[in-house]
């Protein structure tokens, strides 16, 4: 579905990402995790063609992204960046309707079918009551849902999310992740997201890709990837890993230094 092959990405002559490869299958939900500055967002943006790769290539359904028209790509793939800006007088519905742009020529207006899709996306994201609200009047979680609604309106096969839960409180984080899961499971949209919270990554992804210093360290199921050893290796912190009795997925508790030393003593 979406494949990164040996990507090298440079900023100002400095290599930020080095020989990164990732292959994502149709319908999968993938998280990219890693410490700050490990190149997570860079990798995501490169896969979405927002930033150029120095070497390597990105293939979308087997086609080299560079050889594709950017408009064609935008009909198949959507990326939501971390900080989004919109004019302060724009309403939710106006924003959402921009998602139809990739499917329109410059002289075409929105048709009743487009409005049906817009309505569907607004409903799907639970924004029906807020559709005429101006964006600054929304809470962080509502605003993020509005942007996701715009992404849905684009009707993508692949959705890339760059830290969709940053700036949100825990309830809204959960809300956005649940929405993402719904999009993945009900609509079959392939999702790749950059996350900070290991427990979110564990719970909401089929596979996790671990980045460190611009290199892929590990790629596998949450159970394979999220172990005490790897967390120590990647983040240099001690963590306890338990397993959810419901889903069987790892639950991570990051230890304070005092806790860690007590644990170490006990062992």
């Amino acid at each position: 579905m979406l494949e990164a092959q040996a990507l090298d990405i440079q900023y100002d002559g400095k290599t930020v990402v080095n020989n990164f490869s990732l292959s994502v299958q149709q319908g999968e939900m993938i998280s990219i995790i890693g410490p700050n500055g490990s190149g997570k967002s860079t990798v995501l943006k490169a896969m979405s063609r927002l930033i150029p790769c120095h070497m390597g290539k990105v293939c979308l359904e087997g086609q080299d992204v560079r050889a594709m028209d950017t408009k064609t790509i935008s009909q198949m793939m959507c990326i939501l960046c971390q900080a989004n800006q919109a004019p302060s007088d724009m309403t939710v519905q106006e924003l959402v309707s921009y998602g139809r742009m990739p499917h329109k020529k410059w002289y075409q207006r929105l048709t009743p079918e487009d409005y049906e899709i817009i309505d569907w996306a607004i409903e799907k994201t639970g924004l029906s009551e807020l559709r005429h609200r101006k964006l600054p009047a929304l809470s962080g979680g509502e605003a993020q849902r509005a942007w996701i609604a715009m992404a849905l309106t684009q009707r993508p096969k692949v959705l890339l999310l760059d830290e969709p839960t940053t700036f949100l409180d825990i309830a809204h984080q959960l809300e956005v992740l649940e929405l993402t899961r719904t999009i993945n499971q009900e609509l079959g949209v392939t999702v790749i997201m950059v996350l900070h919270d290991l427990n979110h990554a564990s719970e909401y992804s089929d596979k996790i890709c671990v980045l460190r210093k611009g290199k892929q360290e590990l790629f596998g199921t949450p159970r394979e990837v999220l172990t005490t050893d790897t967390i120590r290796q990647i983040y240099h912190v001690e963590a306890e890993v338990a397993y959810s009795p419901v889903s069987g997925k790892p639950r991570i508790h990051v230890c304070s230094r005092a806790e860690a030393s007590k644990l170490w003593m006990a062992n």
Partner: protein
Amino acid sequence: MNMRSSLNVDTSHRKSWILIAIIFALLILAAILSLGLGSVRFPPNEVISALLGKGNEIPDTILWDLRFPRMTLALLVGANMALSGALLQAVMNNPLADPGLTGVSSGSAVTVLVIILLLPEFTSSIPFAAIIGGSIAAIMVYSLAWKKGSISPVRIILSGVAVNAVFGGIIGLLSILYSDRLPAALQWLNGSLSGKGIGDVKLLLPYSILGWIASMFCIRQANILRLGEQAAANLGEKVNRIRVVLSVTAVFLAAITVSVVGIVGFVGLIVPHIARMLVGSDYKRLLPMSLGMGALVMLAADTAGRSLFAPLDIPAGIVMAMVGGPYFLYLMRKGDM
């Protein structure tokens, strides 16, 4: 099933369209008033009957040779500068952008001044010279502001300041080196409409209409840029190409205007700003509003300049700077920028 609720969003903008209509109505009123004002005053009803070809209270020379061309020119100048500012603000995603601050106006002014002072035999090519000068300034600003494959708004403003300083310096230098020929250029440099005739209107009008049509084609692209560079790219837009197209249109509008009347500051900055407060940031409404309001503001500035201190004729550029500067400070204090 919810289709109706989607579609009726258009009607909620009715208020904005009414405001735009009001501005254009005011514009007509202001035009009639302006034709009557001056060293000899005529009441509006006499102006109207003279315009309609009835009644002969107003001598043709005053109405058709002096005031009508000047009034029309003020409308064109204001509309062009306001549109240019609105487009540059879209390109740079920054409400501070305008042809003056980015150096486009002074770039055009330098090349026009070179022709007036050094190559008077090429007077007919002044509009082209202005476009070249404005483009050079724009290219300088963009290349200075270009970093990591994208243009950052802050850098564009800073490089605008630098480019403006360079061109301002050249204008100063030219004025000293050729001070004997300067009187010919002085009125022009100040952004004055005095002494302009129907010839100048005929020169500016076709270019202006061309620029207006071009800017109406920019609406969709300017709107998408409001969502920011990355969101626009995500939606399948070629962001840098959009920026070039919008910039070319904006530079064209500003340059041809500068070539006829010199530097008129603040219209391009303040008018789109007020228009945005009144009708919102959607370019579908912002551009027509800027056009009408720019024309209105410029006409008011020119009419005030020539009638308040009559028989003195204060250049509209000076009136705009004196009113616009403090207003700009007020906006900054209010924290709108």
